[in-house]
């Protein structure tokens, strides 16, 4: 090797060594970088990778059914076609709204609702365009989907109410979630999700709703679903069994529909279960789930007989003569009035400078408690009320469930009103007047009760004086609703017996106010009490001129009430009927109560 070659070789070797070392160094740096990314920051990047690829989807859960006590469905989920829109896939919303009108009815209201939904949700969440579509409409949409970017067709479930009007007030209905009803429950984000708006649908919303299932899906870079990674099935809502008897309920609703405005409750005197609870007129709840038109809605709102209100729990009426049992019991329990007390009724009574009339102009002559109830003599009760005072009467009324909410499982229950001295002082700043006690003794004046309270009062009278509470719930899921033990009201049995004899004779004695409505079938016989509640005071002039109440405008006529029970001994059923402005308890309410009791006895749902 020449000197030059050797020099070149040595220089090369030295420098190759340096360069090789440099390479090793760079490799080392890259390896360290990889180690940093793949070991130290693995968790961080794994999370990012999962966030990249995994998207959470919610699966709907079936809403729980609502059934009657025998399993007849009152609310169920039926197949329904609907169309959705994914806003981010739609290029031109206006164009889609315009085009869609060629295939299905799509109102401006619909459009406004959709726009609201789009604003409140993320752009990739589907928004309900329209539901309750029929097969033909869906087919037309399906064929034209290519012209409707972002629109998709889905088969879903829609809530239906087979008994329609008959159970509208109790079962209620569901509707789209209003912004104020939004909670963090992810199921609410499901398009077209509906929430209970009234009735059991509302009060048992949490049980009926169930839990949304989740599906973790893998998505690719453009958001398309590739596969399902895991899914957790949703939990369907619990089915709610009501205490109602569907057939009795339908019968009751039909019977009440003969009046302009009426309500009735039939319940069990022992366990408080409600067999029928109707408010007439009613409405079709299916209108609300399938979309109600503006005209239909206006019509429901404008009706003076308030079809949207459940009058059995929200309606408040003076109880009239149906209250007389309470006055009597208060008198006997006070010890100030003996059971044998008798009063001469000349047709009126003078208290101070005021004259209070009995409903019978000529008077009843000498009356005892039994006749006073069966013939509904007002003067007897004026007399005993004068002796015991309002506070004792009010206390007894409260014992029988008046003046406060009974805790029925429905929204909108009102407490009614049981006035006493303190109440008047507190609310009106005035002292109680004796005349007001006189008026209150026959369920007039300030006192207000709901039909449900009247039924409960009757039940407590006939069940031996136990504080039974009403319930609509028979079972939740597979679990029967426990029947609570009710406390005794501690009222002497002989007083109760005496009062019940009066109610018995009111129906079954020839002179009884409801004799016309007696039930002659053996074993079906009922007892009861009529009530006619003044809506406005009868003026002296009207009394003199003998103006008949039925000739007044409808809204000035008396309310007609009747409370009934059956059978006569070991009574199991209590019933209250209120016919708004029905003029006379014996003529308008009693016949309805008779029919309802007869039907109840036939059905005998308690057995």
């Amino acid at each position, binding site marked *: 090797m020449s000197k030059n070659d050797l020099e070149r070789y040595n220089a090369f070797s030295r420098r*190759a060594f340096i360069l090789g070392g440099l390479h090793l160094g760079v490799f080392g740096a890259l390896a360290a970088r990889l180690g940093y990314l793949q070991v130290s920051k693995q968790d961080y990047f794994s999370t990012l990778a999962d966030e990249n690829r995994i998207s959470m989807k919610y699966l709907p859960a079936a809403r729980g059914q609502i059934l009657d006590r025998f399993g007849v469905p009152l609310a169920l989920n039926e197949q329904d076609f609907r169309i959705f829109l994914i806003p981010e896939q739609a290029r031109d919303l206006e164009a889609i709204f315009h085009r869609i009108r060629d295939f299905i009815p799509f109102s401006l209201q619909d459009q406004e609702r959709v726009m609201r939904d789009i604003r409140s949700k993320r752009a990739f969440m589907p928004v309900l365009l329209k539901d309750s579509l029929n097969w033909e409409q869906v087919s037309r949409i399906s064929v034209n989907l290519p012209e409707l970017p972002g629109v998709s067709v889905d088969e879903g479930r829609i809530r239906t109410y087979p008994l329609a009007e008959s159970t509208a007030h109790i079962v209620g209905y569901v509707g789209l979630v209003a912004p104020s009803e939004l909670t963090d429950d992810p199921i609410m984000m499901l398009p077209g999700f509906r929430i209970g708006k009234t009735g059991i649908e509302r009060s048992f919303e949490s049980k009926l709703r169930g839990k949304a299932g989740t599906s973790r899906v893998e998505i690719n870079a453009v958001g398309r679903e590739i596969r399902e990674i895991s899914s957790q099935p949703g939990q369907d809502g619990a089915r709610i069994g009501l205490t109602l008897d569907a057939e009795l309920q339908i019968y009751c609703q039909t019977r009440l529909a003969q009046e302009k405005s009426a309500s009735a409750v039939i319940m069990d005197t022992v366990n408080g279960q409600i067999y029928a609870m109707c408010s007439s007129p009613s409405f079709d709840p299916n209108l609300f789930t399938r979309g109600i038109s503006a005209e239909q809605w206006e019509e429901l709102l404008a009706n003076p007989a308030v079809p949207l209100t459940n009058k059995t729990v929200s309606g408040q009426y003076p109880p009239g003569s149906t209250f007389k049992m309470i006055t009597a019991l208060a008198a006997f329990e006070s010890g100030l009035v003996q059971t044998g007390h008798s009063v001469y009724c000349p047709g009126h009574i003078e208290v101070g400078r005021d004259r209070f009339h009995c409903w019978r102009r000529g008077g009843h002559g000498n009356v005892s408690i039994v006749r006073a109830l069966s013939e509904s003599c007002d003067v007897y009760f004026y007399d005993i009320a004068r002796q015991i005072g309002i506070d004792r009467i009010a206390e007894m009324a409260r014992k029988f469930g008046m003046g406060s909410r009974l805790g029925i499982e429905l929204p909108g229950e009102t407490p009614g009103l049981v006035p006493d001295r303190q109440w008047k002082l507190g609310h009106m700043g005035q002292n109680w007047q004796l005349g007001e006690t006189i008026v209150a003794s026959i369920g007039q004046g300030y006192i207000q009760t709901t039909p449900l309270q009247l039924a409960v009062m009757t039940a407590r009278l006939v069940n031996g004086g136990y504080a039974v509470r009403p319930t609509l719930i028979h079972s939740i899921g597979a679990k029967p609703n426990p029947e609570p033990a009710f406390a005794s009201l501690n009222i002497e049995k002989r007083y109760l017996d005496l009062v019940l004899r009066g109610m018995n004779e009111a129906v079954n004695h020839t002179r009884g106010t409801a004799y016309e409505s007696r039930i002659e079938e053996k074993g079906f016989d009922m007892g009861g009490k009529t009530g006619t509640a003044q809506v406005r005071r009868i003026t002296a002039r009207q009394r003199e001129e003998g103006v008949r109440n039925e000739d007044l405008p409808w809204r000035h006529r008396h309310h007609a009430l009747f409370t009934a029970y059956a059978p006569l001994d070991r009574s199991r059923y209590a019933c209250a009927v209120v016919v708004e402005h029905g003029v006379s308890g014996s003529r308008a309410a009693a016949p309805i109560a008779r029919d309802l009791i007869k039907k109840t006895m036939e059905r005998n749902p308690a057995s």
Partner: protein
Amino acid sequence: MYFEQHSMTFFEKLPRLSYGLILLVLITGLIGVMALYSAAGGDFEPWAFRHGLRFAIGFAGMLVVAMIDIRWWLWLSYPIYLLSVLLLAAVEVKGHIGMGAQRWIDLGFMRLQPSEFVKIGVVMALARFFHGASPAEVKNPLFLLRPAVLVLLPAALVMMQPDLGTAVALVLAAGSIFFLAGVSYWVFAAVIAAAVAAMPVLWHFLRDYQKNRILVFLNPESDPLGAGYHIMQSKIALGSGGIGGKGFLQGTQSHLNFLPEKQTDFIFTLLAEEWGLTGAAILFLIFLLMIFYGFLIAHTSNNQYGRLVASGIAVNFALYVFINIAMVTGLIPVVGVPLPMISNGGSAMLAVLFGFGLILSVGVYRDVKLARKL
């Protein structure tokens, strides 16, 4: 005349082949096929099969190159260099538009990317040049002007394509040969200082997308859905692979298309996601051994041409690996350099295999002494 030395027979050459290097080349080729099979979601189409076919052809070509006398290669160095530069110039004249840069000539059966071959051409030409230079001449800076032109002409052409990554790799590989040939240290110091000073000026010559890549590199999170997307997704893929990896065909980032260009420049990311740090380390080791073989063969060569060719090609190969991996791990901006032997793409692999053929030839003819002047 160097041909007067004894020419070896075929069977004399066989034992002189570096079978270790051949085996490593074979392994990397197979890793490439496997990675592309995975990139297609477990399918030989559209990449893995053709990659395997090209590899088979290139592998055979490599062995042929290995068997050709080193003296022929010395003699062919300038013509090959000239041809590659002419092809590069031809791309400028009649090029196709692809990915925003003109880089290839369509030969019908493959797209020829002259920039890959020019790297080999430059190494050969420089080796040829310094082979003929005496130590005294090498120490003279003025003497270095001619080889500098040899490098800067193709580098400028590549830069005009524009392909910043390859241009930088070209200059760095050439610099290594200057270094190994014995150019004074102070020359390097001066050039580096000049380059740093010229950087603001060079910045103006960069295309907008190149500037953008550098800016995004400096802060990838600034634009996660735009230009920073590549780097972020690549880091996510790497990082989520962990030590053991997600398993063959299980890479979520690559298979769900979050990772762009996974079959070309970002193939390393796919490998590291599916095989983890373990797989990446093994691949590193293989690459390191291949480079080590290049230097070893250079070291055993008895002629300056062989030493410079073998080490120059090894450095060239190492630069591919460094730039690519540094790029996908977010250490340097995205510059578009493939991972040799693994990334989908014919020109780069054929050029690399040709280069390894030359290294093998240097090994076979290591004992041949070559005169400084032809």
